[in-house]
């Protein structure tokens, strides 16, 4: 089956620092999403990015499908960026079923 590996598992940053989170997947996928899980457990959509590059404010993401990885960039981090970041992928013929990585737990210190 498809494996999804995220790195690093934990990350501690000082406010204002930049960071890069990585997601490796083991086969061709037709869906790749990045989520941020807030302290209350809500999964918030960040990007739908099966390929290419997207930007939303201080966050951007790049997926290189041919090399089976995706990167999430957080610039000028803020304490509100703290939480767990998940990468999830899906096959087309799996009916949109997402397979999640184990997450990167980010802590931004003031």
């Amino acid at each position, binding site marked *: 089956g498809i494996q999804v590996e995220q790195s690093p598992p934990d990350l501690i940053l000082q406010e204002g620092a930049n960071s890069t989170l990585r997601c490796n997947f083991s086969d061709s996928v037709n869906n790749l999403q990045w989520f941020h899980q807030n302290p209350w457990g809500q999964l918030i959509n960040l990007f*739908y990015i099966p390929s290419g590059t997207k930007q939303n404010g201080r966050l951007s993401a790049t997926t290189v499908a041919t090399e089976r990885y995706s990167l999430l960039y957080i610039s000028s981090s803020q304490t509100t960026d703290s939480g767990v970041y998940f990468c999830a992928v899906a096959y*087309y013929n799996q*009916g949109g079923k997402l397979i999640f990585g184990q997450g990167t737990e980010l802590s931004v210190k003031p």
Partner: protein
Amino acid sequence: DVKVTQSSRYLVKRTGEKVFLECVQDMDHENMFWYRQDPGLGLRLIYFSYDVKMKEKGDIPEGYSVSREKKERFSLILESASTNQTSMYLCASSSVRRGGRDTQYFGPGTRLTVL
């Protein structure tokens, strides 16, 4: 604005009780999903449905059943709750545009404790 709602944020039940978790989406999505999230195990798919009255088993369906009588509502049923079903339950939905590869949206989650 996209909206997926779940019937309860927190729920406490006794072992052996029948438990219903409800999920409603207002986006006219065809696909709906139930996941559970546990420390160290991540998010795992329990069941999903791609149409009314249709259901498919996910990775961990044992001890659960589902019901989808209307397009907007997907229910997860624990026929006889057990302590190992204490978990965070997350519902999601997505459309079948783009060949079923569309963005999946999640509800706020239900933290279920079985005593």
